[in-house]
């Protein structure tokens, strides 16, 4: 297969089309603008639909409509726009609609800046709108992994009838790396529940259950799905972890920096390793069954995933945290120092 250089944002758009996505809705926001731009050029050629929506609120609701009509549909955005999409995501979860939303995370809160960040972790893992909401959250760390996860995102989304979020960041979106693109697949036929016109009895896609016992039954069904996902869909990768006396947990771009830092401290004789969650929700708790002496979590945030790591370890080992915020990406040297400090018991930037 031919390797080509592609920007993360463009690669994800192309991979979505190749995965059978035939409807894209979006609104301009940096650092993900190459996605709608690419879709505007290429989606019509694939026989699909591109609409520049008037807002992220409208965009996610267009995904609602198209996905409910049985077509693989997606949107992409960054933090401020993702906040606006959470309303629609809650309705999609309540209505059991699939769909893929990419959040190319940037610095927050508020307008923040356009630099890379992982500050939306809580929002994507806990905050997909009001109510008891969850969706699978995939966190690629290379452009190739973005491409590889795109068909997975659509398949998982349809299997569980819940939206899937791909949590990337400004670096992954803007960076070019060599990628091998998969062969395009044909879009799957619309599922039975899709509203395509009531040739038989009418179908209804709705999230309203006025009677408490009805809504409870609905949410219990969602909870069974959530549990099934927790049991079956945890994904993570370990790097030089087997003999590690200190394990560093990081995802996305932060995991790449940690990988470099692990190599640095290994070269100096310190047995460090990396646990890289690929699913942020469900959090890969199975990666934490065996525990070394020390743990360190590195995030481009004020400390969010670290809470899941502490929950997964249930107090079995101390967990340090090293985070940079505001779009600052730590250097491998800085992280290497944080790993060394973690081993001697200091917690840097706790």
């Amino acid at each position, binding site marked *: 297969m031919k390797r080509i250089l592609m920007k993360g944002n463009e690669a994800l758009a192309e991979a979505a089309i190749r995965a059978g996505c*035939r*409807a894209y*809705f979006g609104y301009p926001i940096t650092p993900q603008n190459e996605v709608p731009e690419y879709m505007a050029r290429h989606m019509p050629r694939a026989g699909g*639909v591109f*609409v520049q*929506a*008037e*807002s992220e*609120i*409208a*965009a996610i*609701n*267009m*995904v*609602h*409509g*198209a*996905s*409910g*009509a*049985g*077509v693989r*549909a997606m949107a992409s955005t960054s933090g401020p726009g993702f906040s606006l999409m959470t*309303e*629609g995501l809650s*309705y999609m979860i309540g*209505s059991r609609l699939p769909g893929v939303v990419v959040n190319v995370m940037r610095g927050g809160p508020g307008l923040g800046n356009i630099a890379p960040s992982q500050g939306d972790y809580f929002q994507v893992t806990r905050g997909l709108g009001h109510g008891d909401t969850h969706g699978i959250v995939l966190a690629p760390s290379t452009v190739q992994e973005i491409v590889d996860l795109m068909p997975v995102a659509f398949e998982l989304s349809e299997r569980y009838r819940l939206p899937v979020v791909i949590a990337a960041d400004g670096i992954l979106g803007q960076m070019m790396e060599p990628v091998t693109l998969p062969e395009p697949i044909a879009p799957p036929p619309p599922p039975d529940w899709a*509203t*395509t*016109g*009531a*040739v038989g009895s*009418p*179908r*209804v*896609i*709705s*999230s*309203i259950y006025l009677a408490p016992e009805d809504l409870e039954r609905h949410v219990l069904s969602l909870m069974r799905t959530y549990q099934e996902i927790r049991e079956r869909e945890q994904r993570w990768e370990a790097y030089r972890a087997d003999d590690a006396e200190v394990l560093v947990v990081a995802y996305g771009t932060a995991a790449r920096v940690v990988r470099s830092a692990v190599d640095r401290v290994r070269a100096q004789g310190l047995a460090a390793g990396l646990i890289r969650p690929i699913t942020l929700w469900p959090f890969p708790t199975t990666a934490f069954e065996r525990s070394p002496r020390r743990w360190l979590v590195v995030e481009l945030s004020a400390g969010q995933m670290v809470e899941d790591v502490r929950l997964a370890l249930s107090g079995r080992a101390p967990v340090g945290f090293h985070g940079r915020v505001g779009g600052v990406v730590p250097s491998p040297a800085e992280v290497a120092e944080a790993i060394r400090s973690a081993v001697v018991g200091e917690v840097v930037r706790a």
Partner: protein
Amino acid sequence: MIKDMVEVTSRPRSLVDVPLHYCPGCTHGTIHRLVAEAIDSLGIRERTIGVASVGCSVFIYNYLDVDFQQAPHGRAPAVATGIKRVLPDRVVFTYQGDGDLASIGTAEILHAAARGERITVIFVNNAIYGMTGGQMAPTTLSGMKTTTSPYGRDVRQAGGALRVVELLAGIDGVAYAAREAVTSPARIHRARRAVEAAFRAQIEDRGLGIVELLSTCPVNWKLPPVEAVAWCEANMIPAFPLGVLKDTTRSGD
């Protein structure tokens, strides 16, 4: 003539034979019937997809025998856009109240209109929030008392009633825009024609079709149903003039 009489007394095919949950005197039932009649007369039941909004009519899918998606508050035109773009040969309509369309959903309806989405919008205006218990709506009349304008709507403080179809009629993407009322048999007859015309604008690929239907809310207006009809005639129709504001099938429009 006999044929017409039969049609008036029979239940439209697209209207499900179940009791409505609406309050006594509410005109949603009448308007549901007008939509069902239009779907039947155009022969589009099997290729029509409705989008329900948030408000009293949220359960419209229990009454119309077509596929439905239920949209977040105000977002029905965006959901309808998503459906229509991926299924361009289907007929897609939204059914929205005044709070949904004229307050929280102004961006969605305005831009669906600007894009000339081939959808039909049934806009029910009763000048009040019904489902939440009688709060001031964007279409509440000046001086009208509601639970959130207890001293009467003060235009200086809360603005005046928003006339939405006039706004939308000025947008190029709108092919048909009309306002009618359902307060008398004659007006209902005109409303029926308007609803069908709003569907035709979509089916003939001309643009977005919208009908605003002046409606009543006896419970939240705190009036008996017959007086509510009279109040609508006396107060709403002067504030919201009836008629076809735009029809691209007519020359000069």
